[in-house]
């Protein structure tokens, strides 16, 4: 074995990886931030590198390249909101200000030292582990059912019940969200074909969520999407990735599993919905489904609870409860549901998270039935329906 060549191969890998990481530091830093605590040495190093990249103009040059190539991507899997002329700062729009009145923020978390914060995180985590160990049959849909004693803070500002929109005709529907939205979109489109004159558009970003503005800043982009598509209603299907991520909360990070997380997420959703409310577009927030992994289901429940509170407090938003639609008679995760003829239809994909085609169809029909209570969806005549 030629040791010089071995050394050369290893050296190229180390140097190349280091250089590649530096050039990708804008992308790497938020990814790493979402997975670690503030005391992490590597995180500090990454942040310093990011500052160096910004001050040297490298980040700006890379952003410039992105914007010149933007026309190729047509707002698909790349977030090009920074390429629009905007007076906003380069920080994500969804960078929330720390609240003054949160009991958890001030007394339970902010004043706690590192050991206490870890203990609180462990307590919530233990609760989730105990849930996972409970006997089958216990599969509630809300956070309080889990006995986690999480109290969500009252939302700041006026708490208004959702405006009851006049039952107006719907000509255009826009669905936005993460990969669940992408998976559900074909079924929604198929279901909407039963109605007269309804256009459907979808914008979905894999791996995205309100907790990951570095992947796609929904709060900044959805108003633009509304201006582009002019939907009569907006369907929001997201949160599965959020349920696995920490949330930035001003200069503080709400660590997944701590009592602060549901509150931070509620604030995130409220901020997102406030941005949409300016466009006066009614929003239907679709509840996330139960998933195969019990712990993840518990986290998703927390996200649902927080989103529901935010939606109820936000103007023009309705929360569409779907949890029980996709569970079995015992309230547990199931891959199959019986159809009206008694056949077992697979409703979930093999990954235990996404929907199968039939599952998407089931959920779409349910969503449209719900929506039709509040908006006018005129069914096509039998002969006109597109099969």
């Amino acid at each position, binding site marked *: *074995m*030629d040791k010089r*060549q*071995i050394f*050369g*191969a*290893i*050296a*190229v*890998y*180390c*140097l*190349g*990886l*280091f*250089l*590649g990481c*530096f*050039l*990708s530091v804008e*992308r*790497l830093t938020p*990814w790493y931030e979402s997975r670690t605590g503030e005391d992490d040495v590597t995180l500090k190093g990454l942040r310093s590198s990011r500052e160096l990249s910004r001050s040297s103009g490298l980040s700006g040059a*890379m952003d410039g*390249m*992105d914007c010149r*190539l933007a026309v*190729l*991507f*047509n707002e*698909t*899997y*790349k*977030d090009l909101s920074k390429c629009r002329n905007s007076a906003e700062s380069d920080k994500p729009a969804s960078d929330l200000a720390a609240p003054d009145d949160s009991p958890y923020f001030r007394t339970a978390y902010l004043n706690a030292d590192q050991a206490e914060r870890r203990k609180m995180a462990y307590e919530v985590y233990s609760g989730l582990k105990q849930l996972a160990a409970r006997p089958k049959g216990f599969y509630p849909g809300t956070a309080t059912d889990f006995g986690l004693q999480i109290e969500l803070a009252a939302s700041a500002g006026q708490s208004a019940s959702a405006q009851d929109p006049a039952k107006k005709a719907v000509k255009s529907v826009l669905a936005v969200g993460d990969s669940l939205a992408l998976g559900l*979109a*074909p079924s929604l*489109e198929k279901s909407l074909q039963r109605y007269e004159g309804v256009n459907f558009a979808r914008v979905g*970003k*894999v*791996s*995205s969520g309100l907790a990951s503005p*570095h*992947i*796609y800043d929904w709060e900044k982009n959805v108003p633009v999407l509304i201006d582009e598509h002019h939907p009569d209603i907006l369907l929001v299907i997201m949160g599965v990735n959020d349920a696995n991520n920490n949330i930035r909360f001003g200069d503080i990070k709400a660590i997944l599993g701590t009592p602060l997380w549901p509150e931070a997420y509620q604030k995130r959703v409220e901020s997102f919905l406030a941005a949409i409310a300016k466009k006066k577009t009614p929003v239907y927030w679709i509840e996330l489904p139960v998933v*195969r992994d019990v712990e993840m289901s518990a986290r998703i429940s927390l996200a649902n609870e927080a989103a529901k509170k935010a939606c109820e407090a936000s103007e023009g938003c309705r929360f569409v409860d779907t949890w029980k639609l996709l569970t079995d008679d015992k309230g547990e*995760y*199931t*891959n*199959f549901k019986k159809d009206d*003829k*008694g*056949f*077992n239809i*697979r409703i979930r994909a*093999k990954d*235990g998270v996404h929907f199968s*085609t039939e599952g998407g169809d089931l959920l779409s029909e349910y969503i449209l039935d719900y929506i039709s209570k509040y908006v006018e969806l005129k069914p096509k005549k039998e002969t006109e329906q*597109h099969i």
Partner: protein
Amino acid sequence: MNIVSFQFALFFLAVLPLNWLLRRQPLGYRLFLLAASYYAYGSYNPVFLLILFVFSFFTWLLGLAVAKDPRRRKLMVALHLILGLSGLAFFKYYDLFYQTMDSLLVGRGLANHLPQWDIILPIGISFFTFQGISYLLDVARDPEQLADNGLDVFIFVAFFPTLLSGPILRARQFLPQITAPTMTRETWVRAYFLLLSGLFKKLVLASYLAEHIVGQVFESPETCSSATVALGCVAYSIQILCDFSGYTDLVMGVGGLMGFTIPDNFKLPYAATNLREFWHRWHISFSTWLRDYLYFSLGGNRKGLLRKHFNLLLTMTLGGFWHGAGFNYIVWGFLHGAGLIVAHFFNDVTSRSASHKPGTPAGRAASWFITFLFVTMAWIFFRAESFSAAMTVLKRIVIFDGRGEILGLYAIPIVACVLLREIAGWDIVGSYVERVKNWPIVAHAAIAGILGALVLRLGPDGVPQFIYFQF
């Protein structure tokens, strides 16, 4: 962990130096390689490790039995095949079996008492099962192929670069490399090119085509014009080539840096002028596995013309079924089987013809076009969610409807460039290695870092999955 993830890059940062530091210690190196492979595989789901270990154990044990006791060879081979294939069948096809029984029983007013199990398919099971079977069958045919060291069998089945989506290795080619690695200047220069090439094909080309045209065409063909649907199908042919060959490039690069020569799985498949040639160039490790262990075992072409055609059809249909529990995959395999019968028949007729002449350029062009058209048409069944969805796509193309969305105009240059490269047969890797192999290490690191970052920049945000991970 996904091979295009940052976690894998960090993992390999530790594995690469240790791989070479421990090379001179036979036991230590083997344990390290096995531990690294199990760690990488266990990162998906620790339960999968048990399945991998149990299968590896029986492969090793039955391999020993086959080599030491030739009288019981057939019994041991049968036992291993039952173990491996029943495990694969259970994880992969139980749902299909359940739903089939449901249709049969419930349709007749009977109850379906089969348990509704939530079965998680262990990632890579199709590949490592076939790899283990190839080892045992090789030992059964030639006991000299028995691994000298038992740990080598475990490493062979679990080798992390190839575990998830191949190439399906052959023990006689892989095992000697555990103690006799290859590392020259050309080796690592080539490896880094392959890493960059793999990233580019997957993150830039395949992802772009999937997102900007293929996805919409296959999800909602009715909303697209016929021309767009046709373009989408051609784009899928390119997408799957870039996705799968991109993955193979990454595996070859990773393996190459560790001193292992991983065989290439793709040799310009869309340059083929007939279907036989296509299958000598596409997913080579899989097609040769089918040939050596299924087609030959069925009798190959030794039992007459009719039997040869039947063996071809059955081999390819089962090959389609291996990909997934769906009628559309069976149809895909069947189409290729039928196409191969025609190709063989045509070849037999023309090679016997006294007036047989080499093809003209126009003739070769026509052969290429027909082959590519056939392969693309068959891919429709591979990509669609179901057989009926595939038929919807096909119908949309043949009705020549100009109404609907026109998408993917930027996909055309990508499709054209990839096809041209396939047809021209330019050896990009070889040219690159020759040109830059004597450049200093810093230059190579700069190329890797800068181009790697650029590729990441052009790719999607988030970690994309590989098509063949689902098999």
